[in-house]
């Protein structure tokens, strides 16, 4: 299976194994797109007996799907706004600082995604129950914002470390105060990194299900709607269509974020 290192050409076995791994990663997603057009509505039969675009129209009429999408969008927008504020502040404080407790603080920022989601979920659930806080829109947002901070923080820190400190010094030497420097020098530098971090946070929140099931109560976000359909399918073709819509909706922000930070990635490597 190993190739000859000197020639630099991959052996046939290696190329086959790499190709199979890529197919393994992508065929299931292609299958989802195919099933959205299937005429079959009772089973998951393969190959689909016929193809139709009718189910897109049926899904469009569904009130419950629209409500779930609406809730998810509002949750994602609020969580992203909070994460942008908190993540940027934390990054500004920690990017170049060296002080006692710095490691502990950065660990605290990473902890919500380092711990299994079920732990974050049950921790918030037990806090809400102990302090008798009823489930609401904001209990979902609290959970989402907590694990979205790290995404914004990572993007902002990477950009701040690449920004030369002499720019800030020059701004100060030329007579700008701290606020003017933030507005005219630091924020323009950070702009696209914050936009990228915000887009990633948005996508993360829009897709989150594990923590949400503990903090949503009876509310139905789009992932919770999807999860319910997975456990107890009601109208399979509608689920197929919604799955394709979710793929499209999460792709756009992620692709935007990737495009905005492609130079940061190269800088970090």
């Amino acid at each position, binding site marked *: 299976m*190993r190739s000859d290192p000197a020639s*630099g050409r991959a052996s046939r076995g290696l190329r086959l194994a790499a190709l199979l791994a*890529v197919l393994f990663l992508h065929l299931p997603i292609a299958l989802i797109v195919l099933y959205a057009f299937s005429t079959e509505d009772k089973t998951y039969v393969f190959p689909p007996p016929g193809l139709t675009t009718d189910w897109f129209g049926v899904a469009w009429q569904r009130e419950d799907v629209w409500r779930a999408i609406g809730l998810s969008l509002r949750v994602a927008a609020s969580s992203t706004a909070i994460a942008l504020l908190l993540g940027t502040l934390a990054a500004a404080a920690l990017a170049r600082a060296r002080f006692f407790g710095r490691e502990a603080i950065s660990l605290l920022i990473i*902890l919500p995604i380092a711990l*299994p989601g079920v732990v974050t979920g*049950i921790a918030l659930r037990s806090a809400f129950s102990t*302090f008798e806080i009823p489930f609401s829109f904001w209990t979902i947002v609290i959970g989402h914002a907590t694990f979205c901070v790290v995404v914004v923080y990572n993007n902002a820190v990477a950009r701040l470390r690449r920004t030369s400190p002499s720019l800030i010094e020059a701004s100060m030497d030329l007579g700008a105060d701290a606020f003017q420097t933030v507005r005219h020098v630091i924020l323009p530098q950070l702009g696209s990194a914050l936009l990228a971090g915000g887009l990633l946070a948005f996508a993360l929140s829009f897709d989150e299900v594990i923590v949400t099931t503990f903090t949503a109560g009876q509310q139905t976000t789009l992932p919770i709607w999807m999860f319910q359909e997975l456990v107890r399918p009601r109208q399979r073709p509608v689920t197929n269509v919604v799955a394709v819509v979710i793929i499209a909706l999460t792709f756009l922000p992620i692709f935007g974020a990737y495009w905005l930070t492609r130079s940061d990635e190269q800088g970090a490597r």
Partner: protein
Amino acid sequence: MDAMTLDGARGPGRRLSDLLMRRRAMLWLLLLAPPMLWLGVLYLGSLFTLLANSFFRLDDFSGRVLPEFTFDNFIAILSPANLDVIRRTVTMAVTVTLACAVIAFPLAWYIARHARGGWKPLLYIAVMLPLWSSYLVRLYAWKLLLAKEGAVSWVLGKLHLTWLLDAVLSLPSIGGSSLSFSALGTFMVFVYLWLPYMILPIVAALERIPASLIEASGDLGADPRVTFRRVILPLAMPGVAAGSIFTFSLTLGDYIVPQVIGDSTLYIGQVVYRQQGVAGNIPFAAAFSIVPILIVGVWLWLAKRRGAFDAL
């Protein structure tokens, strides 16, 4: 007098700015206060409430949580049924991690050492794209794939291998009525979902091996297999260890996958979810959720010794 007018003309913003610039500690405090209040009070506070709850008791009659100190929840974890759940979950997490490493390695090696020109960024995107697509949708895809009437059965039927599928499904503890309802199916879905997390750190580790090292090994008379075992594999280990943190910890905490694809045996996450939901027994759910924290802690410590944190 002149200094006074000048100072007055500069306005309150300038004075605040000067104060902050002179006292860096105050600036940091102002910057850090909001994120630390959120994460320190809301999040750490919740984690401490979780810990406290694990020592509380559920009143069977009223269904209310009583703040009375007890070890009963932790004793209940040691029942054979619960130990079985823990053992099953850890076994799943370890096998998923091993399978991910084996599948990831050739592709990672190809990306790191052979991909030329435009292929390299293209393959990078090919690995990251699934990571960025919806987790539930990717899980749903496997419900379609593994169903009795689904694509996997169809392909195996076309290859005249249905007997093989039936033989595998008849095996005790990994089999079931169809792949959709078997532990083998759960395993396949986990491997699929977490594979990109394993590929990326291995690529990073392999890219760091100097080509001269591999040439030197060859020049000194090692054949490619020996070079692989004695030079490449040890140097790639930190990458594998880093990837294993994700594959292990994500499998350990997941309760969605086994609920959608699998025989109806329980995993740690499902026990936590059911206890807090249907049973309303938050104290026991809290105590049980400490188990994956401890196991992940041990795994992190092992991975750190393998150099995982240098490879992230």
